[in-house]
């Protein structure tokens, strides 16, 4: 496993993130209970499938038809 020194910028990013994550969890609760509504408002099921294929073109490591590859 690679070990690298954390930069000041990274520490700042993570501190900022922790504060925002705590605020969102406090306001909206467990993300598993509400993120689905966000996803459904934007994407239809076939949209996500094609989006995944586009982002991994020419191929995902983990599609059904490639499960025996590894």
């Amino acid at each position: 496993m690679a070990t690298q020194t954390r930069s000041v910028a990274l520490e700042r990013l993570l501190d900022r993130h922790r504060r925002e994550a705590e605020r969102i969890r406090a306001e909206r609760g467990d993300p598993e209970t509400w993120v689905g509504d966000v996803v459904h408002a934007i994407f239809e099921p076939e949209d996500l499938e094609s989006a995944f294929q586009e982002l991994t073109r020419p191929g995902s490591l983990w599609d059904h038809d490639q499960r025996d590859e590894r």
Partner: protein
Amino acid sequence: MNGSVFDHSQPNVMWPDPIVVDSNMVVANFQHFYPGQDHRRVERARAFFQRLLHDGQQGVLTPTAFSAVVHVAVRKTYEQLVRGHRAELRRRYDAQVDGWRDVYKQDPVPLQQLAHDLNELRESLVPYNLAIADLNDLGGSVIPDSRHSSEELIERMTRYGLDSSDAMITIEASRLGIGAIVSMDRDMRRAVPDFDIYT
């Protein structure tokens, strides 16, 4: 460094904290919110995000990876408009409409109307312990001899054999001082000379 490829789903595999998360992991995790999305990769992505959520592991989404996530939201919104409505759209815009780009070129309003949804999308990522890096976060490089990013982009694209977006994610990871990337894209394994790749 010379990295390695790991299977992040193995219980004995510990990821570095933090780890850069590729956009395809985010989209695969979104798929579990629709029933019947039983691809093996959907379960793997969900398990990864559950570990982020419950085990205190930290992920980082770089600006380029975040841009890819919002791009697919925009593209899919336009594709939904086009689906089954090409003739109507041709009449409305008095132009050829063969795909989503044709509507995008004609009309920015559907994108402008996405402001709320895109902000919600961004906010939905944060509580999964997925930190979204700001461009300003990339300025404090820990690489002593870092070059102009445009030169570095070309060097990485040609050394790894990676296209520009993936190569840029590796540059952003390096600028943040992160040496590990989790991705379901087989191409990303080409960055193994400099990164640990978790798949």
